[in-house]
């Protein structure tokens, strides 16, 4: 089932000034309900603009954004409800923290929804668990935390609204490997528990390959391609031409193939490649080459 559909969407920044800039040009795309979609594209290709259109922070100049088949701009009064349904975590969200304690900050969203105190407590506890924030941290001031912890608090703040669609704009940018996998682990956990649709903007092809089912590639304000990881990463040369890459390990597999060692296609994680390589070491010669 289609959760989100974009129909001929265009967006223009700074209209009628010399700084005018067409950020999105005739975007058509569908996001399947319950999927994890990776959104990739070089810097300035319009990814952040696109995700802000999805929760109504920006209004398309042309075209329509449909959620569950209905235009999100049909009823302007429902805009806030839409924001609770489509949760957006901005790039570097740690700069949005403001409350005295982590707990209160996570509760900001649910409070705006007008939930009961009891319900809010539940939501905060759940969200904190998804993001790996332990009880002790909840009582601290968000300004005392490390960068990675702040990031997780900010993500928890959106998860606490239990949105049906969770969108994250470069959630792991600038984090250490442990921080990255914690965050992605939390996102997957959230999806498993709630069945939400997830969209992740990322520059890391490794992360995309590991966590996403679908990939949407953007280039110069347009959708360049849409497909499964296999379909997209098979076009390595074309991806390179638009300033993108494939996972390093996939590049390694391609190099091996060029040398005559064919491990097979569609291997994008170190684990998969490791398993594919084992026979070669075990059998001394492995068989193929």
């Amino acid at each position: 089932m289609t959760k989100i559909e974009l129909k001929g969407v265009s967006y223009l920044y700074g209209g009628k000034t010399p700084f005018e800039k067409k950020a999105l040009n005739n975007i058509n795309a569908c996001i399947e309900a319950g999927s994890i979609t990776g959104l990739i594209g070089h810097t300035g290709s319009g990814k952040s603009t696109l995700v802000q259109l999805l929760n109504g922070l920006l209004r398309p100049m042309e075209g329509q954004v449909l959620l569950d088949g209905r235009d999100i701009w049909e009823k302007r009064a429902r805009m806030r409800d839409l924001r609770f349904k489509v949760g957006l975590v901005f790039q570097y969200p740690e700069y949005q923290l403001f409350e005295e304690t982590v707990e209160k900050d996570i509760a900001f969203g649910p409070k705006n929804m007008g939930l009961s105190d009891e319900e809010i407590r539940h939501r905060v506890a759940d969200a904190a668990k998804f993001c790996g924030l332990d009880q002790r941290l909840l009582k601290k001031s968000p300004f005392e935390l490390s960068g990675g912890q702040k990031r997780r608090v900010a993500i928890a703040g959106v998860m606490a609204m239990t949105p049906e669609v969770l969108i994250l704009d470069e959630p792991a940018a600038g984090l250490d490997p442990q921080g990255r996998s914690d965050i992605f682990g939390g996102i997957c956990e959230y999806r498993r528990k709630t069945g939400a649709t997830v969209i992740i903007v990322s520059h890391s092809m490794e992360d995309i390959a590991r966590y996403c089912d679908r990939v949407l590639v953007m280039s110069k304000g347009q959708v360049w391609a849409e497909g499964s990881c296999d379909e997209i990463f098979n076009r390595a040369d074309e991806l390179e031409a638009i300033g993108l890459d494939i996972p390093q390990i996939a590049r390694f597999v391609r190099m091996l193939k060029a040398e005559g060692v064919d491990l097979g296609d569609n291997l994008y994680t170190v684990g998969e490649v490791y398993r594919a390589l084992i026979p070669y070491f075990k059998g001394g010669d492995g068989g193929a080459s």
Partner: protein
Amino acid sequence: MLRDITLGQYFPGNSVFHRTDPRMKIVLTALYIAAVFLADSWWSYLVMVMGAVLIILFSRIPLRIVISGFKAVMLIIVFTAILNIFWTSGDNEPLWSFWKIRIYTEGLEHAGKMVLRLACLLMGTNVLVSYTTSPIALTDGIERLFAPLKLIKLPVHEFAMMMTIALRFIPTLIEETDKIMNAQKARGADFTEGNLVRRVKALIPILIPLFVSAFMRAGELATAMECRCYNGGEGRTRMTVLKTRFTDWLMLIIFIAYGVGIVLIRN
């Protein structure tokens, strides 16, 4: 949305005024303002308006932009004009009277001149300074023009540096505010509903992150400046050295002639 109210209204281009030395532009603006205030007879007003029109034409700034910058203060101008119409009394019979209100020809004349003068003043200086001079060039010009004041121990360089930094960071702060507002809106914050108390409270989630990041940025900037051995204006050389060219001096002569012309046809 916030972006629309930026202070720096620099409109990039390559007109005569864009190319004029910023120091000279400050002098020209001073001359222009003096000339506008000296005009009094209708003939001198005609010259004044022609001057403003020529400035706008030569700057090649779209009229739409010039007028939109003027709209903001339109209300004040209209208000002063109305006050002038009603509160000026003349020697002759009133033109129109009703109850205690009397309108004299002098009142209308005053109001008309007032509107013209303010319009010329605003549009002319806007075009000469805001639209055609980048903020950085402007503070640079100010620093150099007022450099002699260093002799009487005025911190001209420090002041100019403060202005430059402030101007440089206004767009950044606005962008930041925009971003934080959007982030809080995404969490269901509402800045448009409720009574005054609720609306002021709704600003807290914006102001706190904004102040925190502004202070952090200021600290970082100070460190970065010290890392590059900044220690005030003493002995500092410049990347862009301002040079007045022939056209700058020509411009000065034209503006002086403009002022003198207006003085000559005064009553």
